């Protein structure tokens, strides 16, 4: 039982990170029907932005709570600006061309950022401990680490905040309108460009938060971290029903739990194979994902 609970904690903290990144994929897909492959690289850049900001402010050697908050806000702002810039420079000029063009561009931006990261930051850097780390031994073989609590609670808080923005604010209503129909929204006087820009900003902020959380937990950041992290999060978004915000959260947690329990109870050798088989099974049963709306293609 303790083993089960421990694996549950492991799975939830892993899944929370997937969920945060998945939200960025799903929001952009919701508004532009674009799979933004550069999203994983925004996440990676967020981690390095946090590292350099911490070094610049001296927070890495002398960590204080306000200092860490400044680093977090700074990194998330950097991600927001980066996300909006990518949209402005790489995607907006192509918005009226075929969807495939944008997709290829997204892959290009992803490779560009990854290789720039490799040149600028080197292969790997260690991330300082900015927050005190504690571990609570609940029972024999069952421990809760402060990093897991932090990851999970920050994820929940950000999701509630996102839910509030999307459902209760003017800009959120505009985002929903654009995702229903861009042209109709434009006719109704909604500034589509601004809304799309805002969507990228919000998704990137969440990626920045995920990056900081993972950096604080693993203390190692790499220019290729966006590749694996981004791929898993993309799968989580599809699993939950791409375009659906609760779907991304559910998909992320489900993928994290699936990976952990396959490793824990079946065989870690076949972790990815079994976890993805499970996902294929779910998609066969519900092709549009757990929370996806099946839509009829207009002809």
């Amino acid at each position, binding site marked *: 039982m303790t*083993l089960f609970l421990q694996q549950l904690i492991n799975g939830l903290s892993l899944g929370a990170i997937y969920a945060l990144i998945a939200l960025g994929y799903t929001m952009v897909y919701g508004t532009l029907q674009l799979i933004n492959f550069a999203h994983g690289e925004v996440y990676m850049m967020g981690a390095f932005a946090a590292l350099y900001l911490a070094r610049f402010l001296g927070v890495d050697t002398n960590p204080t709570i306000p200092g860490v908050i400044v680093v977090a806000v700074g990194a998330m702002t950097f991600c927001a600006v980066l996300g909006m810039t990518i949209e402005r420079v790489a995607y907006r000029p192509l918005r009226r061309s075929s969807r495939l063009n944008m997709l290829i561009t997204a892959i290009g931006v992803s490779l560009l950022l990854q290789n720039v990261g490799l040149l600028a930051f080197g292969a790997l850097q*260690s991330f300082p401990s900015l927050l005190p780390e504690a571990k609570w031994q609940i029972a024999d073989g069952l421990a809760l680490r402060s990093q897991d609590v932090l990851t999970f609670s920050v994820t929940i808080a950000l999701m509630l905040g996102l839910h509030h923005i999307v459902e209760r604010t003017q800009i959120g209503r505009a985002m929903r309108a654009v995702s229903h129909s861009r042209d109709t929204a434009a006719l109704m006087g909604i500034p589509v460009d601004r809304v799309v820009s805002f969507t990228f900003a919000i998704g990137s902020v969440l990626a920045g938060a995920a990056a900081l959380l993972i950096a604080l937990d693993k*203390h*190692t950041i790499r220019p290729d*971290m966006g590749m694996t992290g981004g791929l898993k999060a993309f799968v989580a978004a599809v699993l939950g029903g791409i375009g659906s915000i609760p779907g991304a959260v559910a998909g992320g947690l489900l993928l994290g739990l699936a990976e952990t329990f396959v*490793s824990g109870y079946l065989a870690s050798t076949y972790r990815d194979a079994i976890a993805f088989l499970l996902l294929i099974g779910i998609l066969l049963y519900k092709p549009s994902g757990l929370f996806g709306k099946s839509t009829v293609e207009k002809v």
Partner: protein
Amino acid sequence: MRVATVLLTTFLAACSGGAPETKEIVIGQYGSLTGGAATFGLSTKNGIEIATEEQNAAGGIAGVPIRMVLEDDASKPEEAATTVSKLLSRDRPVAILGEVASSSSLAAAPLAQAAGVPMISPSSTSPKVTQVGDYIFRVCFIDPFQGTAAAQFAYNTKGVRTVAVLTDVKSDYSVGLAQYFKETFVSLGGTIIAEEAYSANDIDFKAQLTNIVSKNPDAIFVPGYYTETGLIARDARGGGYKGILLGGDGWDSEQLVGIGQDAIIGGFYTNHYSVDDPSPVVQDFIKKYQAKYGTKPDGLAALGYDSAKILYQSMTEVAKNPAHAAAFADRSAVPATEGARKAARAALRDELARVKNFPGVTGTITIDKDRNAEKPAVVVEVTKDGPRFVESISPGGSTAPAPTGTEGAAPADGAAAPAVAPAEAAAPPVEAVPAAAK
């Protein structure tokens, strides 16, 4: 970007075509200068660079200077193959040095074999690498021996009876080393109580380690590379594991402690050489390396140095034949001279196969009939100040151990250990190695 490359290539081609030919001997080198195993490639490059400078200072090969052409494979096996075919077709090297990771060497070796260009891997330990063909050599020991050494150390020296193995399923090296470790450990009488796996580039290992820790083995054997190993150590200690962490030469990086921090301190791994070795060959190399790069060389730098040294020694031997010497320096694309070049490379191959008792930094190297190096392994302990020598295990199975049952590096008696003599309290304090800045 592409336009710039094309222009540059055209420009270079124009230069080499127009200017009078400067005589030089080209050696190709490929390695992981970026990516997940970057310190492997960078250390190897540094070691090879020192050997090349020494050789050129001494007049190169029969008076012709050596030019090293270096290519980065970004730690990816598929890139390694592309890189080596580029080297072979563009630079027409006399020989090729590389790679560290066995998966990368395995991807590139068939190309070198097919082209009839001798390739020396400084540090790929998977037995499969030299099985590719008779032009593929290495100057390090192979995993069956390394696995045996690690198992002997665990069972005999540390008294370990139960082990969990955590393998990187994507790596030929890791899978092979795990298998040889298990075979020896079980035949000695130990038990493998858990086998778990991960994939390179994973960052979360808690699921596997929760399982392992719940079985509480005496030791966890992690035959992986330093990036993942550091994180694994963190998750192991974070999960409350108190036993021994044990690994292979994939741990050998100055970044290991940076990633694993306190969790990895006190872990043991098998390696190719120890900086504590007082033999003049080793200390001389360490001094040169430190003067040039400011850090202590790791095992990969030492193997890089040895691989280049052995290559240059063999080339010098072959170049005593003037026809071969001319063929080495001939880089023209005229098909008529290809036969002579091929013959020179074949002579080099034969010469490499004859290397015997070469006094390398990583021990006395003899190339056996399978083109592998016979030499002892050392076990080192991870400390804050860098790896510390624990014991030396030679291929015959004899060990030059620290007294059993005590922790710490007591002196080895030295008699049975040709490569590594005792490290002791008297050893000079090791300076803190700064984190890789490049």
